[in-house]
């Protein structure tokens, strides 16, 4: 598997670290809603097919990437910087 890092270009999967399901939104830090936190920490969509996830180019530029990947075929459908992803955007200050 190879992932095209927006900074470094196409690199082997060995240079990347899987950083998990990107469909999860971290609850408001002040929230004490245990169900929401439980869902964030433990539950996964675990999709078969196109799946949104984070990868870090840990053996390269170290940027986290938001990757859409088909988990049935390993085809990489899109890659962008994680900081620009919806999930990360939700964490930005209003």
């Amino acid at each position, binding site marked *: 598997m190879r992932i095209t890092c*927006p900074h*470094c*270009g196409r690199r082997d999967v060995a240079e990347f670290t899987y950083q998990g399901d990107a469909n999860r939104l971290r609850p408001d830090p002040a929230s004490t809603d245990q169900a929401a936190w439980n869902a964030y920490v433990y539950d996964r969509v675990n999709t078969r097919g196109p799946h949104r996830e984070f990868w870090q180019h840990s053996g*390269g530029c170290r940027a986290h990437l938001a990757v859409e990947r088909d988990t049935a075929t390993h085809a990489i459908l899109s890659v962008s910087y994680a900081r620009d992803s919806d999930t990360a955007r939700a964490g930005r200050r209003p």
Partner: protein
Amino acid sequence: MVEIASPLGTAFKPGRHGKPDGAPGVIVCERKPATIVQVAAFSGRETAVREALVKAAGLKLNGKPGAGVVNGSRAGFGVAPGRWLIADDKEGLAGSFAKAIAHEDGAVTRLTHGRSVFRIEGPRAEWVLAKLFAVDFSPEAFPVGDAVSTTHHDVFAAIQRVGENAFDLYVFRSFARSFFETLVRAGEEVGCEVKA
């Protein structure tokens, strides 16, 4: 000023290694820049930082990822989005960067001690590097001046092409001795000359 000690110690064995005949396929040496410094921009401030950096260092870095320049004793290149590594044979650059880069734009980090630099050059340099790194070293994919951030298993390396057949490898100092041995070993097939 106290000199910066080489990390190689007993692993530095000058002379010819491996294939005994013919011209050496590669020549390997340790470079000892007096300054290695990282300049990094916060998200959205990349251009401002790069422009300040170009001004302060006199290196014409463009905004292309991985782009770099070599200018005599000074070299710089992008290692990550909004991050550059600058090496200089003289001291003092870090100070001028610290003045040039606004606190709201980015940060300057000294890495002179933290990175060791090895140069590998010669007709088989691409071949030998390709043994260790999963990067396309052909000149079309990797022109002079450009750089890549990559790893050889646990060893992180930033590699800049400094000439047609010459590359500088920046590795973490604690790994330097081990990595140097691996590099020389990889060169043995084509004849490797270790120089001071």
